[in-house]
């Protein structure tokens, strides 16, 4: 074989290049570079301790290591910026009201339930997943290859059958579109069940997240681990930063300027400047929230209007697992710890007004409603049986949404 011929073909054969790919990549690389330089300027690498200081620092480090390795070190390892936790509240045995108001959408083995502010519950039907419309007028539900919209009393409005199993429906804040996954495809359909279209085939299993501004931008993680924003009307898409292929969840909040990418080992915040006049958002710096060594992220959620992040962390210990609920303020550095309990906690969700957190505690079969400010938390027990009447040993249900912000 004439190798020159192959070289020539490989070098010159036309290949598709996404429009503006090079420029987009440069913007991301420049943002990462600027962030790194900023970190170095303010970070410990630029600090050159003198010998006496170094000796003192080493002594302190030795002392800290001894503390951390001792049984009492558990408390030191648990250290966070501020501990404001109160004792775990005494559980009520019935959900007589939702603390702070609003309505909950809860997925149980039997299907999704709508929980009214007074605690009244209604099972919507035999669906596998559900999501609120932005004002809670409808619920998008999925079962097998079917995506449907139903009213909160369960009355169906429309239904479509997709080519593959439907999952992760997400209703856009404008109400005009629903994103969902069908097999390995990420698709978008109009809120009235028409105009179903393919957005990409290269999304990971993490559910997509709509821009809270009510536009057409949708964030998703590609299979190569890149966080991307796509225009759901097909006007283009671009990468905004590396999220990692292990991302389990993304959320777009902080007034539209922050995307949270959660994985078991990290919480990353990517700043994006909202688009104006239809232009694509500008990409800002990315930062990683500090987690205690050895902590695993079980769940995390962005506050409705700020870039505060609430997270459930689990720590493995010799004497058993412990879990804690922490809140990183919009500055993101030292978190406040609201709660620490033995065993495993589950998912976490913000109330629509951002003043409370709902934390699932499957280990104790409870929901915990924790206030962010002053005030007593509340606990509700027997959650599994509340959403599986007449069944013993039912699985713990999942909160799909706490409605609504407006």
């Amino acid at each position, binding site marked *: 074989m004439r190798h020159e011929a*192959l070289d020539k073909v*490989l070098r010159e*054969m036309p*290949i*598709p*290049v996404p429009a503006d790919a090079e420029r987009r990549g440069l913007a991301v690389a420049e943002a990462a570079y600027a962030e*790194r330089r900023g970190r170095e300027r303010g970070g410990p690498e630029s600090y050159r301790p003198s010998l006496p200081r170094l000796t003192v620092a080493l002594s302190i480090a030795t002392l800290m290591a001894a503390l951390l390795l001792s049984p009492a070190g558990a408390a030191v390892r648990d250290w966070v910026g501020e501990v404001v936790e109160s004792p775990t509240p005494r559980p009520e045995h019935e959900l007589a009201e939702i603390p702070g108001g609003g309505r909950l959408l809860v997925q149980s083995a039997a299907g999704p339930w709508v929980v009214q502010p007074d605690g009244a519950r209604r099972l919507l039907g035999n669906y596998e997943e559900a999501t609120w419309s932005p004002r809670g007028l409808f619920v998008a539900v999925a079962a097998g290859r079917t995506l449907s919209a139903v009213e909160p009393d369960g009355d169906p409005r429309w239904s479509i059958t997709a080519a593959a199993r439907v999952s992760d429906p997400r209703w856009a804040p404008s109400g005009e579109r629903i994103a969902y996954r069908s*097999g390995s495809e990420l698709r978008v359909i109009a809120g009235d069940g028409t105009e179903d279209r393919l957005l990409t085939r290269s999304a990971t299993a993490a559910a997509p997240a709509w821009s809270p501004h009510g536009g057409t931008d949708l964030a998703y993680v*590609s299979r190569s681990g890149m966080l991307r924003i796509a225009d759901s009307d097909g006007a283009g898409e671009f990468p905004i930063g590396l999220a990692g292929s292990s991302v389990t969840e993304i959320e777009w909040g902080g007034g539209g300027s922050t995307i949270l990418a959660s994985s078991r080992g990290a919480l990353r915040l990517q700043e994006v400047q909202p688009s104006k006049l239809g232009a694509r958002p500008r990409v800002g710096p990315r930062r990683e929230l500090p987690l205690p060594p050895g902590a695993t992220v079980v769940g995390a959620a962005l506050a409705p209007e700020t870039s505060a992040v609430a997270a459930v962390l689990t720590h493995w210990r010799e004497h058993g697992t412990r879990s804690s609920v922490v809140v990183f303020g919009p500055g993101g550095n030292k978190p406040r710890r609201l709660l620490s309990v033995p065993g495993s906690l589950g998912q976490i969700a913000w109330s629509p007004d951002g003043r409370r957190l709902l934390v699932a505690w499957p280990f104790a079969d409870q929901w915990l409603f924790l206030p962010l400010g002053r005030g007593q938390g509340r606990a509700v027990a027997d959650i599994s049986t509340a959403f599986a009447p007449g069944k013993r040993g039912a699985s713990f249900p999942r909160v799909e949404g706490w409605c609504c912000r407006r």
Partner: protein
Amino acid sequence: MEVESGAVERTAGPSVGAPPSRKRERQLVREAQAGSGAAMAQLYSTHWRSAYRAAYLVVHDAAAAEDIAQDGFLAAVDALDRFDRRRPFAPWLHRIVVNRALDWARREALRRKVSRPESVFEPLPPPAEIGGEMMEALKELPAEQRAVVVLRHLLEYTPGEIAAMLDLPRGTVNSRLRRGLDRLRAVAQAEVEMETGQ
């Protein structure tokens, strides 16, 4: 989606000019390590197209290739301080890019094996321009052979360098290269004959 050819790569715009000399590149890396954003941007502009092209020829997916090239540069930015300036920049970047492309292609192959979703959308037809058939033939090769062919015949690394980049024995590189070339031989010959009118 634009279609780019190698000819465009070699002639269009300041970002695709001749690569800088080794001396100039060392200087750019030194400046970037010292905090010069302009030097970092120039390194990016010099190497983006080769990184993208290499990634694309391994994964055959434009969005994934963009992500992989992007990822390569982010990794480079992250590790800039640890980079040994006595070494050339391109092999370092290409090593990251081709390994990530290979990882992606393997994951994709596995995913296709596990579930081949139905779709109402037809796949795009292959490009009809020169290279179309070669592209299809290259796509048919196993990802491991594609990566070796791309490193050898697009990026012009020696089998020894490729072995180091992919962390493989040199004999494995040679055998993958030979098998890949055997399968591409006929197509490449036909392409050249078509182009030259022979």
